[in-house]
């Protein structure tokens, strides 16, 4: 080969790299003839969430059939990847036309940055009276709704009836009874409660319930919003009770290094008697065929007990999971809104009967063929006096990170309840 030929070859190779891609036709919105394309991103991959994934596909197919010329362009990512990608897309103003968002703290930066469209027209129009009371509020900023909630979860203590029966234990209704249960289990060498606090929000649930029972349903929210204080005696006591439980050996050892998934598996393998988790886990205890029938039959749940006679057992910690947003800068905003609205209408009953999701839209448990535990949970929801939104969801992401780290430190006995309260006040005051 001549010298020149090689030189040229090398240069073309380099240039070719850059040119190669540029020629390819653009995929994505707006290039499929005269029809409109709505880009939709969700986080239910086929492999892990088969039913969710199929329902979404069905809804899309129905929508496309009803709306001639509109195509839905779908991208599916897993949870973590979804969050990261949404942020990257947002920096370049490339958000999908319709996508999924979490409530409050996660959503606020997107709303303040003008990325999400107001959905008031839908919530007050086609979907009026569709949602369970209070769920759309979690997706509102300054009175405007930016998300259509799809799920509603509340946290409950699930327990293993077989283990409880073995030691003659019953569902506790007061904290004293609860402590006795823990003591009996611990003395008999059982792990009373499975906790995976590497994920941090898991521990937060415990603190939140103590806060709710001791300081009253509104106290934590007020403290987060600056109308109350974490340093109040009641909220400090809530933190103290968390450490009391830890000192009683209520939780499995090494919980700060275990993921929720590992803790769940302890519960599901009958290595722990109780497990505090939200109702998204219901399929595992009812319909999931991969879990042995025997185990599913042995699981019950109870509401978090009252503490020192205080507290309302109809008050829950929970909140909507994901909801739909419509991008403010979408070129097909009308179609996107139509799709989001259509999605929610179809989602409600299908999601609970086929995928075991507790939807944020109202469903009538009596009219559907559902496992008993679902009916019970849905009835609880109807009778709920209050649902306090998960603290880490309520807070801005900065404050949430402090909260979650402090939870780990509190459970790890690295700090005192007073330090815990101070750290929260400090983090929240920086927000102002």
């Amino acid at each position, binding site marked *: 080969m001549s010298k020149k030929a090689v030189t040229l070859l090398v240069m073309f190779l380099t240039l070719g790299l850059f040119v190669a891609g540029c020629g390819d036709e653009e995929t994505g919105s707006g290039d499929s003839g005269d029809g409109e394309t709505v880009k939709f991103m969700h986080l239910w991959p086929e492999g892990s969430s088969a039913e969710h994934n199929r329902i979404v596909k069905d809804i899309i197919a129905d929508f496309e059939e009803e709306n001639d010329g509109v195509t839905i362009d779908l991208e599916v990512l897993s949870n973590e990847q979804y969050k990261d990608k949404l942020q990257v897309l947002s920096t370049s103003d490339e958000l999908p036309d319709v996508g999924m968002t979490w409530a409050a703290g996660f959503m606020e*930066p997107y709303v303040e*940055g003008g990325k999400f469209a107001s959905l008031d027209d839908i919530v007050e129009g086609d979907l009026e009276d569709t949602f369970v009371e209070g769920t759309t509020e979690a997706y509102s900023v300054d009175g405007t709704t930016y998300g259509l909630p799809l799920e509603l979860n509340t946290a409950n203590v699930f327990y293993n009836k077989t283990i409880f029966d073995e030691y003659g234990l019953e569902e506790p209704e007061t904290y004293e009874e609860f402590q006795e249960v823990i003591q009996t289990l611990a003395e008999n060498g059982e792990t009373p409660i499975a906790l995976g606090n590497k994920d941090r929000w898991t521990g937060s649930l415990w603190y939140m319930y103590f806060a709710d029972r001791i300081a009253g349903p509104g106290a934590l929210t007020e403290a987060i919003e600056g109308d109350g204080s974490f340093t109040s005696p009641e909220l400090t006591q809530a933190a103290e009770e968390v450490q009391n439980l830890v000192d009683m050996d209520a939780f*499995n050892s090494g919980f700060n290094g*275990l993921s929720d998934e590992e803790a769940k598996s302890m519960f599901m393998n009958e290595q722990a008697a109780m497990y505090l988790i939200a109702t998204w886990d219901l399929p595992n205890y009812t319909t999931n065929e991969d879990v042995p029938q025997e185990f599913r039959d042995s699981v019950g749940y109870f509401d978090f007990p009252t503490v020192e006679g205080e507290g309302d057992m109809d008050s829950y910690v929970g909140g909507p999971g994901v909801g739909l947003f419509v991008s403010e800068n979408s070129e097909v905003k009308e179609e996107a809104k139509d799709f989001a609205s259509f999605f929610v209408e179809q989602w409600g009953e299908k999601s609970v009967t086929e995928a075991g999701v507790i939807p944020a839209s109202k469903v009538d448990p009596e009219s559907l063929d559902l496992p008993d535990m679902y009916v019970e949970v849905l009835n609880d929801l109807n009778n709920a006096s209050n649902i306090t939104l998960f603290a880490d969801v309520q807070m801005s992401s900065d404050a949430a990170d402090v909260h979650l780290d402090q939870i780990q430190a509190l459970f790890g006995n690295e700090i005192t309840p007073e330090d815990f309260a101070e750290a929260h006040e400090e983090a929240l005051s920086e927000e102002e």
Partner: protein
Amino acid sequence: MNKVMSNKWMIAIYILPALILIGILIFIPLILTAYYGLMDWDGIGTMEFIGLENYINAVQDVKFWDSAWHSSLLAVFSTLSLGVYLAISMILASKIKGSDLLRKIYLIPMLLSSVAIAQLWIKVFNPQNGVLNQLLLAIGVETPPNWLSDPDIVLYAIFIPILWQYAGFYILIYYAALKNIPESLIEAARIDGATPIQIAYKIKLPLIKGVVKVTVVLAIVGSLKYFDLIYVMTGGGPNGASEVMASYMYKLAFSTNDFGYGSAIGFLLLIITLIVTVIVRKLTADEEELQY
């Protein structure tokens, strides 16, 4: 000779493709990172120029310096481990029976992705069912440690899989370097009556010195920006006890909507790495190298 080897055209042809590529794909993002560091930006809404505020905050940020300390510890341990890897490579590269098979087996774990390695070691470290604690219980340790949840231990516990993960990488490089030594040199020494240990020290080591220096830099740089297993196995916890610079940066930029501040941390990470590398290069430089 010199004329041919200093032809500007030729130099350009050989160096420019690589240089242009990293210029566009690495240096532009790098400059942008430094630039985003000057902004108050959540990575979503509009940016606001705030000068050096992020950098000043970072310098006073205890969490940042803790994470930098953790990263530095990892760098020290990684560098020290190179000695072990080198010794193993020397054994594998010597002409003992079965060395070829052994080498392949030794390097297999490096093919695993971080997802697999993380899952494996989570199972090793599990406080109840974990392989390690079962073993400790069996030999009579009454309260084996909670490897990943004890803030005093977690950092060192998580170094083990990281060092293990990279063993193959360095062994492979050392092995290739050792195989590059002309057999005649070693043969001559052997005839002169040198023992295997003497050959290793007096002949092999000096000959692969350049490669060793490079691996020291790679180990330090790799450790200072290390992210994968820490993120999957502990997420930097509990309460920051295993946070390293890259995981802290990621947390700020992607989880807590402080993209501006996260970028500033990212840029400082680079500056720290750069300073350490320059110092190490200076310390290990010798005359021989200066000729080139």
